[in-house]
């Protein structure tokens, strides 16, 4: 058989399978979509409930407590600037999307990472899958998601979730495996049960690595959320996408600045939180 025929046949199968799933899977995907959008709307509602300066003030306080007064002031001013540019609604909606997707990615990724840290064969099987997820162009994840969940934030959430999960899994597994040998020996010699060994010895040593994983997941999510603007994610991603289509350079630059501000504020906050846990563990 000709190879190109084989490839065409395979493509036809995939198309058929996807349309079959989207025709017959409504009873799964509709509630799934509703749940995702519900979570997203909940976070968004929380962020948009208070006026923008309250959120900016919270950002400033966190920056001050976690880093220093200077960083706090900067974070506050930067967030106010997002509002001054007239992009507050978009900024909060992007924020909500990133936070929701990252939390979902952590809820799934950290337990998987813990299992991978303990079970060698599972880790080995997982490795190529994670490699695949991380090397495929992120646009790919939008297609099946849009076919099954339609246009809107649910699709953006799923695609962002997929991209944000691998670092959480990898760094959690690494942290679990990294427990220094003398402490494992101490645990055995003190008569610890497996559960005690996990909670009292392995987990404390893994926390800095897990925190680094959370930070990395967040950054991956930010990268994806702009791309997800194509599928109607709302927020800054969609603003940028719209600006590109109409060649509205000014708007696209404003939105890009807002993205950068949001990313930097969240990155510094989570990074310093990670360093705090590490500092305590020293």
């Amino acid at each position, binding site marked *: 058989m000709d190879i190109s025929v084989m490839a065409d046949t395979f493509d036809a199968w995939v198309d058929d399978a996807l349309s079959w799933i989207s025709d017959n899977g409504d009873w799964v995907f509709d509630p799934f979509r509703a749940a995702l959008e519900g979570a997203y709307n909940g976070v968004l509602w929380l962020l948009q409930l208070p006026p923008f300066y309250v959120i900016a003030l919270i950002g400033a306080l966190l920056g001050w407590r976690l880093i220093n007064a200077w960083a706090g002031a900067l974070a506050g001013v930067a967030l106010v600037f997002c509002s001054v540019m007239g992009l507050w609604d978009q900024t909060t909606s992007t924020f909500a999307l990133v936070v929701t997707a990252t939390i979902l990615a952590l809820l799934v990724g950290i337990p998987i990472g813990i299992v991978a840290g303990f079970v060698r064969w599972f880790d080995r099987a997982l490795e190529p899958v994670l490699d695949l997820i991380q090397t495929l162009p992120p646009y790919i994840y939008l297609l099946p998601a849009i076919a099954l969940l339609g246009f809107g934030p649910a699709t953006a959430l799923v695609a962002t979730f997929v991209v944000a999960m691998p670092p959480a899994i990898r760094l959690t597994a690494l942290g679990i495996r990294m427990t*220094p040998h*003398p*402490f494992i*020996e*101490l645990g*055995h*010699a*003190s*008569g*610890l*049960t497996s559960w*005690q060994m996990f909670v*009292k*010895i392995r987990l*404390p040593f893994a926390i800095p690595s897990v925190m680094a994983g959370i930070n990395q997941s967040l950054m991956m999510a930010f990268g994806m959320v702009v791309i997800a603007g194509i599928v109607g994610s709302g927020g800054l991603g969609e603003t940028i996408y719209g600006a590109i289509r109409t060649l509205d350079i000014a708007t696209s630059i404003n939105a890009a600045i807002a993205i950068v501000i949001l990313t930097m504020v969240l990155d510094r906050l989570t990074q310093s939180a990670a360093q705090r846990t590490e500092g*305590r*563990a*020293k």
Partner: protein
Amino acid sequence: MNTAMNDASEVLVDCQNVWKVFGSRAPAAVKAISDRNLSKKQVLQEFNCVVGVCDASIQIRRGEIFCIMGLSGSGKSTLVRLLNRLIEPSLGRITIKGKEISKLNAAELRDMRARHIGMVFQSVALLPNRTVLENAAFGLEVRGIPKEVRNKTAKAALDQVGLSDWVSRYPSELSGGMQQRVGLARALAADPEIILMDEPFSALDPLIRRQLQDEFRQLTKSLGKSSVFITHDLEEAIRIGDRIAIMKDGVIVQVGTAEDIVTKPADDYVSDFVAGISRIHLVKAHSVMTPVAEFKSSQPNCGVDALLKTSPEADIGELIDLTMKSDRDAVAVVENGAIIGVVTIRGLLRGVAGAPAAELVAA
């Protein structure tokens, strides 16, 4: 080994013909060892397996500090980990307090480790996210002892090692010597009968090490604990141990008191080791004295009864002091009222230089 003493006191740890073989074909090698009596070298050649511990038999009695001395790679750390089954023995029997530990199930083994066998590590292994007090209470915490009770016990243990002012500090704030004291307090807090010490003081500087050695010995004796103490330093073993086992390439070459090992080394390896050891406080009168008859025949005009007298347990240091005080060049050794021998200056010099007893008699 001194069998008379063996019978007299209770054996807490009994290790009989224990082997540990490392390598992918270890089970086959173990079978060959028990069936065909293979030697270590044959095991390496035939099965490509390394013998970590080779046919080791030791007994540790209640209240005894038993040192295992050997260079790195001699199998001493493996041997001590066999005692609490951190490493499973390939062959042989290990009995702790009359219970064969290879027959314990997981829960019994945990209980045995938590209650009866404490362990102190060279790396100390203090949990960095816990305070000194929480570290010392760790063993009690995992046994589910209420916080108030365990903190009180841990505080008492820290008190014993002189760290009562440091309870709320973190390990990183302590010096190496203090950290090791916390390690010891952690082991003591659980109140085990047996404490395994895996080269605990090796990483410390000489002054602190010596101080900790003395404190450890004094504390262990006053609490009536038994201890297996691993070290690569013979001086440390002599300072601390009631008895010493010397290991080389997985084999226990000699077991005995410090004096046994220094005065009667079992082979060239041991005698090389003891060559640099100061004998002043190790060698006792009974191993350097000349029989009375021989002394009389060599120095007929010297009356034995006129000499200063001492006991057979007097060490060379005391003998030198006595000889200096005396106007004669000899000291009489008295046991049960009778003179059993004479220590001459010649004998003293031999004792300090470390000539074997047989040569001494010939001279």
